[in-house]
């Protein structure tokens, strides 16, 4: 022991003692801090790691402290052998504590990795979630605009529908739709009215072709639609209401599918019946005027030479009164010249320039009776019965008695010719208070007038009678005379009124004369 350098041990012990103490104290502080951290954020794994790490470090530092301090304490207490007994435990405890730290750190590492991964996952999940939220917001925004748009579009659509419905129903023209088989599938009110159909369901499904008066025209309409896809200003006559056919001008277009096959058609038809009638009347009246002027010119030119021929023939007749044969020959010349003169007079009459008009206030029934009295005998000879139905309330009016008698005689003569023998001639007079017109009807049970002749019978020189029987001027002259009275004359064959048909009337002439009050005739 003497050889041994003896160094003072006290500082070593002091350092050892103090170091261990500081280590123990610091480890407790560390534990306390870690604990506070875990309290603050219990779920933070790093703080938990620090806590456990600090705890193990406390155990380690205590065990180290015991390992360093206890030998001195036991040596001082005089029981160093007791340390020998405890020393292995202290070493084991140290090792266990370090092992704990290692395990803890390793465990923390794994946990950290896991947590990190979880964090990444959570982050991406959060991002996805965020995107989802955004998408949802977008979607909901879109949904909202979509609803708004749908609402706006619906409103537009409704307004548009109302507009077209109004146009469809309010139109004065017929508007119709047909399906692929050319059957009517929709038609407006005007269409129903024009076609004389009361309920819409009565017409839906009926082929349009059935309404064409002329089937061929209907075929043409379909062919045009098929070839051109449209028809423009297509004029056709339709089966209309009771008062005759409808004259329509159709503009239509085919409805096709994507392949170009015809699915149906839509069209507008304008009613030109009234217009057409007026045009016909206008043309007729123009024709009458021009023919009248021509006739008057010719008649006037012929008048003078004719008068001279007649006059000289009469003179010669006187000269040859003794010579029978020459006298007879001259008589024939005179007779024929007189026939010519009558025709010329008719022509001048027709042109309404020949005679002065002499309208006087009177009773038309009386005028009719006078005429009937004259023709009665001739008619009786041919077994023709006169049915007369004269209105008792017929008001007086101003008329040219002589000329209206001429009209009635003309019409009665025509009726007589139409019957030949055995039949009925009907004569009516009526008072239409609402229109202020007198109507006179003269009808016959004769053969009737073919439709193609109806439009021409008032034309000058148009006659169906044999040569020499009529000049073809009777009705033209009558027409002129009635026009002169501001009236109109119409012919119906067959007549429309059931009353007239019931009496076996096949042709009726209707004269409409407005009432002309006394004193008013000068202005006419």
């Amino acid at each position, binding site marked *: 022991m003497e050889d041994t350098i003896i160094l003072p041990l006290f500082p070593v012990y002091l350092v050892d003692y103090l170091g261990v103490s500081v280590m123990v104290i610091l480890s407790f502080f560390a534990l306390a801090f870690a604990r506070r951290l875990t309290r603050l954020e219990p779920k933070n794994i790093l703080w938990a790691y620090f806590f456990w790490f600090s705890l193990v470090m406390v155990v380690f530092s205590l065990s180290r402290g015991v390992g360093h301090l206890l030998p001195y304490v036991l040596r001082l207490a005089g029981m160093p052998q007791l340390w020998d007994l405890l020393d292995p435990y202290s070493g084991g405890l140290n090792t266990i504590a370090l092992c704990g730290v290692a395990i803890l750190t390793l465990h923390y590492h794994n946990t950290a990795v896991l947590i990190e991964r979880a964090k990444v996952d959570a982050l991406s999940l959060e991002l996805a979630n965020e995107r989802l939220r955004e998408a949802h917001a977008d979607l909901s925004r879109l949904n909202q605009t979509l609803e708004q748009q749908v609402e706006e579009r619906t409103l537009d659509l409704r307004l548009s529908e109302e507009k077209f419905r109004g146009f469809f129903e309010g139109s004065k023209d017929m508007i119709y739709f047909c399906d692929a088989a050319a059957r009517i599938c929709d038609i407006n009110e005007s269409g129903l009215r024009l076609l004389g159909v009361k309920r819409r369901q009565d017409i839906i499904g009926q082929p349009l072709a059935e309404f064409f008066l002329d089937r061929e025209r209907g075929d043409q309409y379909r062919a045009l639609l098929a070839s051109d896809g449209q028809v423009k200003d297509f004029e056709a006559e339709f089966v209309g209401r009771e008062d005759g056919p409808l004259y329509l001008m159709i503009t239509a277009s085919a409805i096709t599918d994507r392949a170009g096959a015809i699915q149906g058609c839509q069209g507008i038809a304008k009613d030109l019946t009234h217009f057409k009638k007026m045009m016909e009347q206008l043309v007729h009246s123009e024709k009458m005027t021009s023919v009248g002027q021509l006739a008057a010119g010719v008649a*006037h030119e012929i008048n*003078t030479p004719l008068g001279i021929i007649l006059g000289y023939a009469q003179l010669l007749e*006187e000269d040859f009164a003794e010579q029978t044969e020459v006298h007879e020959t001259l008589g024939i010349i005179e007779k024929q010249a007189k026939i010519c003169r009558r025709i010329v007079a008719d022509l001048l009459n027709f042109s309404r320039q*020949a005679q002065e008009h002499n309208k006087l206030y009177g009773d038309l029934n009386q005028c009719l009776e006078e005429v009937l009295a004259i023709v009665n005998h001739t008619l009786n000879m041919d077994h023709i019965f006169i049915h007369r139905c004269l209105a008792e309330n017929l008001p007086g009016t101003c008329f040219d008695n002589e000329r209206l008698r001429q009209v009635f005689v003309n019409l009665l003569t025509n009726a007589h010719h139409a019957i030949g023998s055995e039949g009925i001639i009907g004569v009516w007079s009526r008072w239409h208070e609402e229109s202020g017109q007198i109507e006179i009807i003269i009808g016959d049970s004769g053969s009737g007038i073919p439709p193609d002749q109806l439009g021409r019978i008032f034309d000058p020189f148009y006659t169906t009678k044999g040569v020499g029987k009529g000049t073809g001027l009777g009705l033209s002259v009558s027409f002129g005379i009635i026009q002169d009275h501001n009236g109109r004359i119409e012919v119906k064959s067959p007549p429309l009124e059931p009353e007239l048909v019931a009496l076996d009337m096949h042709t009726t002439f209707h004269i409409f004369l407005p009432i002309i009050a006394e004193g008013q005739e000068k202005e006419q």
Partner: protein
Amino acid sequence: MARILVLDDVLDAGILIQRILERKGHVVEVFHDEDEALRFTEKNPVDLAILDMNLRKMDGLSVLGEMRKALPRLQAIMLTGLPDVDLAKQAFAQGAVAYCAKPIDKERLEERVAEALRAGANLPGQ
């Protein structure tokens, strides 16, 4: 017997009237030109003039007016191819006895002439 003047732009028509009336014993002069007719009436007495309304240069009523200057008591019958109410009124206003549409019948002409001559005979101072 009366002195009658006939004026018609168609000479044949005038001659026809002349023939008819000569048979009734009248003296008839026919003209188709109004100037010649007027010259005749200036120098010769005429009881009755039968005048066409439509002449080549003048109208019948003007001719009548001219003739009346020399022959104030002249009677007149007017003939027309185109009867017209207003012209007829004018003719009567100018003292024409008749206003007749052509062609005029033989009998009618004879009647009218007889009437006209009777009217002339009844004139005061005759």
